[in-house]
Structure formats: C-alpha cells, structure tokens
C-alpha cells in the first residue's frame, strides 16, 4: 500500500484505523506515511475508509485556515477526504503479507478467504476431527498484534519435534519446504502478517502435552496466541471428554463455535475420505 503524497492532506484519520499502527504523519513532509516494515498489507485503510475525492489543495488551505483560527473541523473519522491510498504491486515474498492479512483475499492453496482454513466449521462433512481426537488451531498475532513468520517457525518446529501432523489444507502447511520438520520457506521468515494459524490434530490423550508445549514456546516469541480446540460431540450433543481436560488446565470455557451438524455431501463426485493430515 502507498499513500500518494500529492493527495494526502495529513488529516490523520488513517493513523487510527491501521490495525498495526503503521501509519503516522511524518513531520518532515507533513504527509501520512506508512512504515513498510510494520505494514501487513491488510488493506484496512484502503477498504475500510470511505473515500471522498476532494481537491487536496483546497482541503489543505481550509485546514490551515481553521488551524490558524484554532478551530477544529469535526469530520467523519472513517473517511479519507482525498482518496490518497493507492494499492501497489506486491512482489514475492511481500505478497504473503496480504494473503494472510486481507480477509477478502482467498488463499491460493485452499481457496478459502480469511485465515484460509475450514477447521471444525465443516467437520460434519469433512470428518477432520473425529471421536477420540482433538484439533488445535494455534493462531498467532491475534488480536491486533501481528506476527512475523520467523516466530511461527519456532512453534512449527516444536510441534514437529513432538511428532504431530499438520493439516494439509492449511495455508501455512503449504508454505513449508519440509513438512515433517515443520520448516517454513526461508524467504518468507522476515514477513509480518496480521495473523496465521497452525492447525494440527492429536489423540485426546495428548491434549495436555500439546497445550504445555504451546505454553513453553509462547514464552519465546513476541506476540499473542489465540488457541482454539475442536472436539467431536457424542450422539446426544454432549462433549465430556476434552472440556474437562481444558478446565483442569485452568481454562474457563466461555465461548465456542458450535457445528450443529446439518451439512451433507451433495457433490456428485465428492470423495468421502476425511481431511488429510501430513504426518511427521
């Protein structure tokens, strides 16, 4: 993303809406400027701000006049008055930032927008997590902190060393050069993204071990982690296996995404095989 300096009037609206706090008014040039290192190419500025197409010279003049008179114009806070944001061509590997940060862009590897994975949302069809198994979505950088790929690498290596398999239809897995060791492509490690999910599943008996492993790695990386745990309910709709383990570990279970089991296979040639895990 770039901000056209000929259009920007330094109103400052965009400095608040950047989820990474990467936009600032540069006092030297008196224009909004993007810290490219911190920008994750999420397009929140371009897509979220409404755009007016006012004359920049006119707006600057008005702002200067109001400023001299110590008057404050009270504009709408979600507007770029001169449509100054301009998407630019993103070369590899910078394009990885957008793929993991702009929720409107589907991941090429899975065809799914957002974090690019279906996890338990389609479990009634995919059978991704079955009875006796537990699925983990280990999400980095959320909420609002962001994560460098090199930090995700730490967790991927640790999980691989523990002998877990990574979900094949997951964008991070497709960026691994060596899935059994959890090694990500080296050329993306210095890219920052809004958030990304490592997705694994293990037998229920390994639930506590995996959580303790995640806790250990969390101490070594400079971001936040949102853990999601998927489990299959029994025929009565109860889930009495995984929840007690989580509660024993100190988690208070407040919110869940509940798949209510209405999905069914309707494609003529749909393969009924469960989702494939890549075993290390």
């Amino acid at each position, binding site marked *: 993303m770039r901000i056209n300096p000929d259009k920007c009037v330094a109103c400052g609206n965009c400095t608040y809406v950047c989820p990474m706090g990467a936009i600032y008014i540069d006092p030297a040039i008196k224009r909004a400027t993007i810290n490219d290192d911190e920008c994750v190419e999420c397009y*929140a500025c371009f897509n979220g701000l409404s755009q007016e197409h006012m004359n920049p010279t006119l707006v600057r003049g008005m702002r200067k006049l109001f400023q001299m008179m110590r008057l404050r114009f009270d504009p709408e*806070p979600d507007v770029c008055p001169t449509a100054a944001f301009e998407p630019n061509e993103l070369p590899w590997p910078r394009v990885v930032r957008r793929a993991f940060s702009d929720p409107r862009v589907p991941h090429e590897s899975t065809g*799914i927008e957002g974090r690019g994975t279906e996890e338990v949302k389609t479990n009634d069809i995919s059978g991704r997590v079955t009875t006796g198994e537990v699925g983990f979505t280990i999400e980095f950088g959320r909420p609002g*902190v962001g994560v460098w790929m090199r930090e995700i690498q730490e967790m991927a290596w640790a999980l691989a060393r523990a002998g877990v398999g990574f979900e094949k239809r997951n964008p991070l897995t497709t960026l691994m050069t060596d899935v059994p060791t959890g090694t990500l492509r080296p050329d993306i490690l210095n890219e920052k993204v809004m958030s990304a999910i490592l997705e694994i599943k293990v037998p229920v008996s390994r639930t506590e071990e995996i959580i303790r492993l995640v806790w250990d790695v969390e101490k070594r990386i400079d971001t936040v982690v949102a853990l999601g745990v998927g489990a299959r*309910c*029994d025929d009565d709709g109860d889930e009495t296996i995984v929840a007690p383990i989580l509660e024993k570990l100190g988690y208070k279970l*407040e919110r869940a995404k*509940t798949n*209510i*089991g209405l999905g069914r296979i309707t494609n003529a040639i749909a393969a009924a095989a469960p989702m494939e895990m890549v075993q290390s």
Partner: protein
Amino acid sequence: MTNTLHRFGDADSFRDDYVVFAISCRGKNDDGAIPKLRKFLEMALVFKPVNLGDSRHGGALRASKSLNPLSHWKRNHKPDFNGVIEGVNTLTTAAAVFDNLAAAEALTKAVREADLGLSVNISTSITGAEACCAAAGIPRHSAGYSLGFEGKTEHLPNTDVLALSTMCGHGMVSTSFAKKMIDWVKEGRRTPEEASAYMTRFCSCGVFNPSRACRLLEDARTRTK
C-alpha cells in the same frame, strides 16, 4: 475463518451476541452452493438480524468509494441487508448476527427444516449455542472452544477496547480506532450508534455486532476499563 470465535468477554457478555453462519465444504457440497448461501441469508433476514455478512464482499454497512462531502453532516448509517444477499455471487461464508437468543433459536429451527445441506455453525457462549440446538431439537455435532488470548498479552489494550475490536476477528477494527470511538462517545462528540456504525464498516465479512458495540460503548462512557 475463526473470525467469530475469539471474541473477548465472559459468557454473560455474549447475551446479545449470536453469530449463525453457513459454509460449504470444498469438494464435498460446494456445487450449487451459492443459491443456498443466499437462501440462508434470506431466511435470517426474517428474524431481524443486526448484521448480515458475505465474507467475500462485506457486511450490511460498507465503506463508500465515492462519499459525498455533505455526508459529514448527514451520514446514512442504515444497514443494507438486501444488498448483502443480492451480492452473494461466489462461494463464501454467509453470516447472520443477532442480538437476542430467541432470534438465533428461530433461525436454527428454520435452517434445520430447510435442509440446505450446508454446514451451519453458531458462534456465541457455549450455553447459548446449546439453547439454540435444544430449541431446534438437534444435538451438537462438534465444538470449537476458544481458550482466549495468551502469550505476550502485555501487547493487548484495555478490556473495553478489546471487547470492541475483537468483534472483527480478522483485526480490521483496529484497537486505536476502537479506543478513539470510546473517547468520542465519552466526549459526547458521537452517539454510541454512530461510533458503532463507523466500526462496523471496517469489518469486511459482516460479523461485527453493532448492537453489542452500542452496549459496550454505553458502558464504557461512564467507566472505561
């Protein structure tokens, strides 16, 4: 899309937050799914949602690429629900957001009867989802628990800001902007409804709950945590 899962708050704070969404599974039931996704949203509309979303195109309130400058004095904050439905033209996640349990229960019952064949999920408190399933007479299939946020949580903002910004799980509602909206409500510069509408426009898949946001902003007006 775990974008509705990790909302900040305890179970009670989700008493006005129910996200019901439909999704197809790649290669299994995505043939002919687009009209079914549209049908799901049409069914949801009957029960008066506070937001509708198509993850490819946005929610019921969207940013404008050509805003009239006079809008500063008379902004239209009315959601366009039919626009969301009509805009579904590709495989997507179709979401309906409600601020009351009765509506979520009613939609759950309706989608069961409609038998669309799509996967349907409810994202809310665990007890809220159980109530929806009980009302529709169906057992839960799978649960995806949110264990909250951990790691370097010192990077996170205060809880009011967090409760607002995490209603867009993709992070499009920045914590700085949520803080600014709280401040503007406190200063009396905007109403909670206006502040909520500004934030709603940033959520690009339409799962932000403007009704809950209004309540959170009203609560934060007199004491920010």
